[in-house]
């Protein structure tokens, strides 16, 4: 126990130190030139609202939907924009930051990176510090890694509160178990998430801008270049899930539609086309699924077996009402991860959700104590599709309370046997398929139309808050619908529902159709957000022409970006770690911005657009032209 507190203290201190270090860096760098950049102020109230937003993104209070909505940089960007007075730009920066995190998923207590921290803090730094969105993408990735400290501290500490819940269960205290699932964990989480983000929001923007002012121009350019290259990692990570088999061509269709229309085609149109093609694909292209191996191994009648073998023939005396079921489902949906911890994962969340059921079914202290303890054990599943486990278990509890011969082992074996496979299906559906596709769509809408140039750049795009809003509504409806259906069907039909829905092949069809749609949208997104601009020129008929603009892009627009995405995907397939790729791309971007071939770019004053040909890559396309400022409507 002491070790856990020490670990928590250490991590918190580290986070605070890092946060506190920024202002001092700013002071040290304070004397640097800050020519022409507007002064930045984030008021205390704005910083507090942003910090509160990040806490809420990790909290249970938004019907468990925070993880799918405001935890994502796209949606966080919209809200930070609202708080700082520019929701359109906030959404745009959030969308850009979100692309490298497109394939983000958290499975069974692992968190590779924290998109919530990257989004809430990254967008604040970008808006208040007037950063180029591409620079924000580079910085946000580092923030995302930093944010995982908060998550892992919490996972360690919350194990302690699970033992507090055990103590309440020992006293048959139903309300106490429920309270222990959220109060201590959330009190800690509030402090651990609010404080660092508050400090970052208040001091970060000026600090980051001062650091950027001290950097040589090629260094700043390097960060912008990296901001165009890092999205390839997010897209390639996502391709690991869907860029397979007969769905592969659709990725190229999406990419080409976007580049051929010079980025002017709406992602909604591409998605509509994707849906149509998904229908055709399912009807004509897909070979018939091989006869499921399961049916060979298992007699067909087996699936219809009721959950309990010994149901009393008389009318049960104790019946759960629809209200009990809905209350239980709502408690789970809210609080499944309120006390997420290494030791039990969702164990206390499961017990919390069972409290209305236990209240209705059990009356003696012994029964209540046994039921609470039974459901406080290790549990983890995908919290939406996986609800079929809860429904099934509730039906078993009801039969048990009415005298059926169902012992603890029977209930435990259903929980521990089903939670894994249901999580496998649920994660594939919600985290790997539905969320990234809807996110990609929202990001595409939020990215808006580039103004003026033939090749869109983030620097001159106009953000569209509708992308964040539509994504939020769509994902919320889908997630709640899956969760509610699984819960109620699990209760009503138990095991037969599980086997029926798996045998029907519906899930496979959804996944295959989503794969077609997802590839189209992902391809289109790659064309928009992955930016590679070669700087070197070639001599064509006596004139110096940009290599890419004169030769490569006329042949195949966006060939370099597409090549980069495919190379990243190939590296990931070769089991190169995403973090290694990230580090390599950052270094390469900054090296590629260094003026190896010509006059140096010491600072903004010396910088002439002729000099841009002296590096390997350039941040804007074509080399030499700064982005035209968008006309204000």
């Amino acid at each position, binding site marked *: 126990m002491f070790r856990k507190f020490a670990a928590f203290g250490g991590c918190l201190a580290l986070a605070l130190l890092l946060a506190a270090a920024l202002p001092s860096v700013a002071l040290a760098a304070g004397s640097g030139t800050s020519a022409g950049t507007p002064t930045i102020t984030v008021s205390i109230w704005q910083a507090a609202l942003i910090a509160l937003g990040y806490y809420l993104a990790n909290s249970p209070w938004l019907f468990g939907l925070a993880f799918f909505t405001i935890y994502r940089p796209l949606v966080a960007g919209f809200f930070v924009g609202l708080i700082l007075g520019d929701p359109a730009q906030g959404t745009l920066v959030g969308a850009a930051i979100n692309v490298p995190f497109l394939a983000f998923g958290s499975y069974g207590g692992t968190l590779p990176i924290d998109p919530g921290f990257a989004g809430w803090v990254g967008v604040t730094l970008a808006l208040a510090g007037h950063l180029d969105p591409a620079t924000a993408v580079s910085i946000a990735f580092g923030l995302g890694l930093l944010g995982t400290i908060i998550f892992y501290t919490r996972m360690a500490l919350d194990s302690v509160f699970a033992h507090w819940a055990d103590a309440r269960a020992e006293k048959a205290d139903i309300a106490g178990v429920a309270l222990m699932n959220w109060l201590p964990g959330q009190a800690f989480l509030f402090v651990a998430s609010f404080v660092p983000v508050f400090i970052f929001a208040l001091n970060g923007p000026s600090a980051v801008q001062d650091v950027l002012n001290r950097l040589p121009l090629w260094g700043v350019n390097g960060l912008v270049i990296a901001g165009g290259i890092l999205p390839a990692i997010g897209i390639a990570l996502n391709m690991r899930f869907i860029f397979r088999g007969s769905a592969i061509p659709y990725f190229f269709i999406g990419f080409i539609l976007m580049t051929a229309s010079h980025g002017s085609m709406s992602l909604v149109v591409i998605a509509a086309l994707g849906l149509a093609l998904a229908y055709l694909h399912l009807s004509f292209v897909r070979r018939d699924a091989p006869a499921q191996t399961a049916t060979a191994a298992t007699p067909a009648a087996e699936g219809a077996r009721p959950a309990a073998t010994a149901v009393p023939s008389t009318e049960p005396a104790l019946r759960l009402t629809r209200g009990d079921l809905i209350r239980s489902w709502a408690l789970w949906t809210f609080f499944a991860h309120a006390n997420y911890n290494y030791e039990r994962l969702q164990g206390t969340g499961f017990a919390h959700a069972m409290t209305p059921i236990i209240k209705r079914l059990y009356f003696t202290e012994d029964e209540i104590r046994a039921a609470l303890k039974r459901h406080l054990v290790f549990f983890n599943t995908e919290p939406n599709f996986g609800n079929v486990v809860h429904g099934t278990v509730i039906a078993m509890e009801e039969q048990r309370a009415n005298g059926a011969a169902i012992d603890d082992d029977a209930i435990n074996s259903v929980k521990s046997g089903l939670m894994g496979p249901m999580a496998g299906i649920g994660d*594939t559906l919600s*985290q790997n398929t539905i969320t990234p596709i809807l996110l990609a769509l929202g990001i595409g809408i939020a990215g808006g139309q580039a103004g003026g140039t033939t090749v869109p750049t983030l620097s001159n795009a106009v953000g569209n808050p509708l992308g964040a809003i539509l994504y939020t509504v769509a994902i919320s409806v889908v997630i709640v619908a899956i969760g509610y259906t699984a819960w109620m069907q699990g209760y009503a039909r138990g095991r037969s529902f599980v086997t029926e829905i798996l045998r029907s092949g519906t899930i496979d069809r959804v996944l295959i159709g989503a794969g077609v749609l997802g590839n189209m949208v992902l391809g289109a997104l790659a064309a928009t957000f992955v930016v590679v601009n070669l700087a070197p020129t070639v001599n064509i008929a006596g004139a110096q022409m940009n290599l890419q603009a004169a030769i490569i892009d006329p042949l195949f627009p966006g060939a370099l970006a597409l090549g980069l995405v495919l190379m990243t995907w190939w590296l990931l397939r070769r089991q190169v770690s995403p973090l290694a790729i990230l580090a390599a791309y950052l270094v390469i971007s900054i090296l590629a911005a260094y003026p190896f071939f010509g006059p140096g770019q010491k600072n903004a004053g010396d910088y002439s657009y002729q000099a841009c040909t002296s590096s390997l890559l350039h941040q804007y396309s074509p080399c030499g032209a700064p982005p035209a400022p968008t006309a204000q409507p």
Partner: protein
Amino acid sequence: MSLRLVRIDDRLIHGQVVASWLRAIGAQRIVIVDDATARDEFLREVLTLAAPEGVPVEVHDVASGAARCSELARTPEPVIVLARSPRTMLALRQAGVPIEIVDVGGMGAGPGRRRLHKTISVSPEEIRELRELEQLGTRVEIQIVADDRPISFRSLDSGN
């Protein structure tokens, strides 16, 4: 060596396995070895249907599982082998299945179990079984998802 991932995981097939490992190592088949699961027709079917399309799942008891794993180890097809407990894994190893590395991916907490690393908890018996696996020349590593860095069991097992 086509037993690409030999994993101890008390939840058998779930998100970490399907979403992370299966894709990362490009496995085309999952072999589950567990006596209790092999006897339970319902769980057998659920596990078989829970894997993504095109990835066949076999459920074996220890006896048939050992023969099947040894056979698969000689083919080029990349395979994931899953067992619920160190005991099953040890039985496979003792039956001659060539296992170079055992990945400890999921062992939940419970009474009488102490936390070894993050979500991994072990009972004293399981510690003994894991040590025995190491003595038989199999490396035991903790790596929950494919993107994690593997941690050797030996480095965590000091002193107890």
